[in-house]
Structures are given as C-alpha cells and as structure tokens.
C-alpha cells in the first residue's frame, strides 16, 4: 500500500523516560518504549491511563515535559544547537509531522471538502506535489479502502465507517513512515467496525509501522506483533499478544482483560 523506499532500519519510535503533565496532574510518568520498523503495536489500557496523550506526544500535538522521543532516529520537537537542544519552531515541527500519519477516534475529516479533496489537500498543499499525480494516488487509495464510488461525497453524507476509511486514506496519501491510530473504531456502530479493521489489517500486511490504541482485543491478538498495556501513565506489561492477552502477569492487566472480554 505504501511505497517503501526507506533505507532507515533503526527503531521507528524510540521513547525514553517521557513525562507529561496537564497542570498539576501528571499523565505520563516515564514511558520507555521502542517500536521497530514494520512492527505493529497495540496499546491497551483503562480510560485515562494516558494512551491518547502518549500517541499525541509522538507527533508533538502535545509538548512533553521531560524525556525524549525519536521518530526514525530524529528527535521530535527539539533541534541540536551549540552543544545543546532548542525547542523547534512551529514550521520545523510541521515538517516532522509529514512522515507521521494520524487517525483519530472521531475521524476529523474536513466537512467542507469531498472525500477526494480531503485526501488530496495535504499532498498538494503541504508537500507541493503535482495535482494530477496526487489525484491518481488519492483515487487509488480510496479504491483500496473500498470507497472508489464515494470520491465526490462530503463527510456528512458518509457513514462513520466510511468516514474513518477516508481518514486513513487521507493519512496514507502523505506516504508516512509511521501510522498512529487513536481508537479508530471506538466511535463506530458495531457492524461498521470490521470494514475499518480490514483496511488496517491490509495496511499491517503491507509492512507499515503502526501504533494502535484500541479496545479491539481480537484485532490485537491477530494483527499485533506486540501488545503494550498502560496503566496510570506507565507501561506495566508488554510482550507478544499470546503473552499479554492470554497469560497476563500483572493484576491490572488481568482485571482489564476480564472486563473487556466479558
């Protein structure tokens, strides 16, 4: 699905001791995590455990208070300067985000643009790629997510599942090296969930590096290379789906899984 001419082989995401507070509330209390290239990671945890916050720190939608995050080896949000680090300008941060696709729980499609315009907007407007080329790619992506016939539809005219698939196509149109998903199916009616998960499954099979916050245990079990369980702003357990989902060590994980699978 994505043209991977990437020669970088190191870790795609490397988080070291990431801390983040909102006011006086510390939401991330030292996250250490490595996501290898081509790996699919599912992030599980109770509501409020900091999953979304961590995901948003990776593309600097949230500024971290301490620690470092590297994406494809590049330090996020900071540039080296005179033997130290300085915070990046808005434009430098924007440039770093080009390689990181993000899919939101509530789709966040641009309602005043058609599906095709949504997909074409950033490659044409931000990456300055030729329109004809982008159009071809966009139509191809919409076809891949099963929406070839919905190019001219506005988001309000699409079902939630269709909107989310457009949102995935929109992120892929930027040819990201990494895709972040924040509960992509949580806002969907049960019968629409599988359409979106199918698209994500194909994407994983194509070799995309993915970090997925989800409550879909079945998807995690089947697609994830690694499952990470977060609680209270720290990672308390991680491993293969078999290890974490079928034989959880930590009490919290056991309790959470019992509730979700019930």
């Amino acid at each position, binding site marked *: 699905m994505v043209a991977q001419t990437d020669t970088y082989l190191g870790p795609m995401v490397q988080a070291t001791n990431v801390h983040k507070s909102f006011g006086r509330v510390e939401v991330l209390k030292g996250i250490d995590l490595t996501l290898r290239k081509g790996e699919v990671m599912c992030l599980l945890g109770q509501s409020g455990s900091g999953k979304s916050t961590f995901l948003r720190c990776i*593309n600097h*939608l949230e500024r971290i208070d301490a620690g470092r995050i590297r994406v494809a080896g590049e330090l996020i949000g900071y540039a080296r300067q005179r033997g130290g680090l300085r915070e990046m300008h*808005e*434009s430098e941060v*924007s*440039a770093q*985000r*080009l390689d*990181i*696709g*993000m899919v*939101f729980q*509530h789709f*966040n*499609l*641009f*309602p*005043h643009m058609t599906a095709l315009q949504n997909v074409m*907007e*950033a490659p044409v*407007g*931000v*990456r300055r790629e030729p329109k004809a080329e982008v159009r071809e790619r966009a139509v191809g992506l919409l076809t891949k997510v099963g929406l070839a016939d919905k190019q001219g539809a*506005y988001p*309000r005219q699409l079902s939630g599942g269709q909107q989310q698939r457009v*949102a995935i196509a*929109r*992120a892929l149109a*930027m040819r990201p090296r990494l895709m972040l998903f924040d509960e992509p199916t949580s806002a969907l009616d049960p019968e629409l969930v599988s359409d979106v998960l199918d698209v994500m499954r194909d994407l994983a099979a194509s070799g995309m590096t993915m970090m997925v916050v989800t409550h879909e245990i079945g998807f995690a079990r089947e697609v994830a290379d690694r499952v990470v369980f977060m609680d209270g702003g720290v990672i308390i357990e991680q491993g293969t789906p078999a290890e974490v989902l079928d034989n959880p060590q930590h009490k919290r994980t056991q309790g959470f899984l019992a509730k979700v699978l019930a």
Partner: protein
Amino acid sequence: MRSVPVQAPGGLADEDTLDLPVRPARHPGRWLGLAVVAVLAAMLVNTLLTNPRFEWDVVAQYFTSESIILGVRRTIDLTVITMLIAVLLGIVLAVLRLSPNPILSGASWLFIWFFRGTPLLVQLLVWYNLAALYPDLSLGIPFGPEFVQLEVNVLITGYAAAVLGLSLNESAYMAEIVRAGILSVDQGQTEAAQALGMSRLRTMRRVVLPQAMRVIIPPLGNDTINMLKMTSLVSVIAVPELLFASQTIYSRTFQTIPLLLVACIWYLIVVSLLSVGQYYIERRFARGATRNLPLTPFQKVKKFFGWGQRGITTTEVKE
C-alpha cells in the same frame, strides 16, 4: 416503533385514530392581534396621506434627482468598500488575537479596545482633521532619512477620512465576529490539519475559516446593514452621500421634512434589498448543516394562520 397498540386516554386504541382526519390547531388570539395591528396601520396610513406637511409632491420631485441618486451611489459604494476592508482587517485582527504570541494578541487587543471604545463620530472627525496633528506625512526609515513627503491636507480628503474612520471602526467589531466564528470550529479540525503537517496559517485559511463562515455570515449581514446607515455620519465631514445630498438641497429650499423622507425611503429600499440578500445567503449556508431548511417568510405567514395545511399529514409539518 411500537408494535403493540397503546390504549389512548379516550379509550381508543391508536390504531383506531389512524383513520381520523387531522385538523391544524386554531389560534383565536392571533386574529385579535391582527385586528389591533390593522387599526394601527390604518391610522398610520391616514396621517401619512392627510397631513399636507409631508409634502409628498416634493418627495416625488427630488426622489430621483441627480444629486440624490449620486448620494445613493456614494452611500452604497462607501458601504461596500468599508465592509471589504473591515472584513479583511477583521480576519487579520482575529487571527492575531488568537495567536499564541502575546505581543501579537496584545497588539490586536489594543487595536480593538481603542476603536471599539471611542465613538465613531469622534474618530471620523479626528481622521478628517488629521492635518492639524500631522501636517506632513513622509515615507522613510524610522528616525532616519525620508524619501517621500506628502501633505496630509491633500491626502486625507473627506472621502478618505470616511473610508478610514468607518473601516477601522468596523474592523474592530468584525474581529470579534470572526473570532467567534473561529472558536466555533471543532478543535479536532485544527489537530487533524496539524497532524497532516499544515502550518498554522494554512490550517486557518483552508480548514478553519471556511467552516467559520457559517457562524460569521449572519452577524456580517447585520453589520453590513448597520454600516449602510452609519455612512450617514460622514455627512458631518462633507462627503456627499445620501444624507448630505438631501441636506444640501433642503438648506437651499427649506423643505426639510420631505427631503429627509427621501433619504429615509432610499435607506429603507437599500436595506430591504440587503436583507433579502442576507436571508438567501444564510439559507444557502444552512444547507447541509441543518436537516430542514428554515421556512421562507411567505411560508411563515401561511403557517401563522394555518392556511394551506389541510390534508397535510402530521409527518410533513413537523419542525
């Protein structure tokens, strides 16, 4: 949908009421209101027609005279130019006001504070008399050499002062209108745009502002109508708009009331046209955002008296 027929209070099952005809509700109070309004309207028409001091013949004589028509044109183009500048400046001010940079948002706040906080009439007079404050205007490097020198008396004509005064004042109000529009757009839109690598400015221009328009348009129309009437203020600085044109005539002929009537009627005509335009623009922007389009005024009158609803099933008249 219920499948079990529910027992209604009257003892009829719902299924039995399905065959009964549906009559629209009656509103006897509305007819009383109509009678009161009709009497008042008759009194008004009576005095308009029988009081000779309205001098309707004079009104008719000047209504389409050359200087009045020129005045109407000037009023309209002053409104258009002023609103154009005010909208553009208002957008800039609103974006600056929402900027995370405290210097920029502070500067915008200060501008709005000043231009909203002082009377428009005073602002117009200050601009018109700017030459008394700065006789010469020069372009050059601050505190350094000057390249061009201009006489303010020549530069700031009555018309220029009018445009400056009206548009700067209005832009302060527009800034708040635009700001409200921007704030009405879901935060997720900005995040999605940023996640795609869009700059703050591009996000504003391509994503936020187009969506803010729906909220901005109604008060913008309101302000445009207001502006049309506010232009009459510039008669004090001798700009020959509609009011000034009327005043010029009656200062010569002393037919004060008929000429003020001429001006009033013209203002009413142009405002009515603007209102109609605004109404349809709003209706257009409501499309897709609300499930049912609002009723047209004609439809509302019909509904008010319950006309033309017989035979319509209840599902069609739901609001």
